[in-house]
């Protein structure tokens, strides 16, 4: 599985780990995140902006 990083603040979405606080279970593919997904830490970068690590 892959990880995706917010280019503004460095928030990392690791598909293996998901994000428990945000309610994304471990194993959630990045592609399955909502289309309007905004970075949970800075909210000024969106799903399309994230970079694959």
């Amino acid at each position, binding site marked *: 599985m892959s990880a995706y990083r917010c280019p503004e603040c460095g928030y990392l979405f690791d598909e293996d780990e998901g994000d428990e606080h945000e309610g994304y279970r471990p194993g959630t593919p990045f592609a399955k995140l909502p289309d309007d997904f905004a970075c949970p830490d800075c*909210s000024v970068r969106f799903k399309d902006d994230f970079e694959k690590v």
Partner: protein
Amino acid sequence: MKGYTATLPGGEAIYYVDRKRYLWTLSVLYPLQPFIGIWLHAETGNQAWLLLPIFLGYVVNPLLDWVLGEDENNPPEEVLLKLDRDPFYRILTYLVVPLHFVSLIGAAWWAGTQSLSWWAFLGLAAVAGITSGLGINTGHELGHKKSKIERRLAKIVLAVPVYGHFWIEHNRGHHRDVSTPEDPASSRMGESIYRFATREIPGAFKRAWAIEKERLERRDKSAWDMNNQILQSMSLSLVLQVGLLLAFGWKMIPFLLVHNVLAWWQLTSANYVEHYGLLRLKDDKGRYERCQPHHSWNSNHVFSNLVLFHLERHSDHHAHPLRRYQSLRHFDNLPTLPSGYFGAYLLAWIPPLWFRVMDKALLALPHVNHDLTRVNIEPAKRAAIVQKYGRRPGESS
């Protein structure tokens, strides 16, 4: 004074000293202002002293901004990271959290135990509220950070002004939607602050609740679960305010009502002046452009920035929401308010005066250049604004 070393791209070594380093303690001490009034009242017996912080905030503060002027200095790019990570600045934001509790409890104690005239009683409640409004500013600085301790402290300090939803509303809602008609926390051209407050206060709460509810639903929890971060902060507010009621009796009902409303009003005033009329345009896919530096109003006035953790360097804050206050930068040619925030609030509270000054400034911004399609306009005032400022097709600037 502590300095930072760095090497410029050309190989030249630099040494940077932050001249404001110790002056930031003003942001920590300013919330103790009710005690100045209380002390002078205790010393002289004259209740009018209790209102002194109002005079300090809205007369002395704008005057100091005017006298001391602006500071456009920036830390060099090369030391930004070191400056941002210096724990000194972070610790100041931690220290101010308990002071907000001390301030409210102290003011409530004085109001609840002294026989004050009605005007001095309400005045002291207003002073306490204005001071707790600064608590929202503290919560703002802390709530933008990633560390657990800072996020926890944000929720704790926001309990003082009963604004526990702000952390979510601001970070997840306002920063996403800023300078769009959809944002209840961005004011529109032609919208008075009073009309704005009726949209902003309930709108912000609803947006925060919806965002938190959605997060909890993903975790298969009810919105009323104690994992709800709004409820966590609000529970602390409840304990604090019921505690004051039990300690000082029924007098706390009007005291806390005035306190709460005035605290919220501080945030409303800040939100009102920060993005007035500014509009992000949509791209061909219908998506709003990324928030640009010209989507916030700024001020470099020294004094009010020093008591507000640099909040007035607002464009850089929106560009880099996690950047700490000491590292926020000034940029040339940004939308600039005629004064620091406290002076700008005074202007905002008198709508005809605000419109007179700010509508002209808004339309003259280089990226707007009198084009009303580039302005966030209050729908109820659109016809009048087009009539007054609109260009006919083909008319050039």
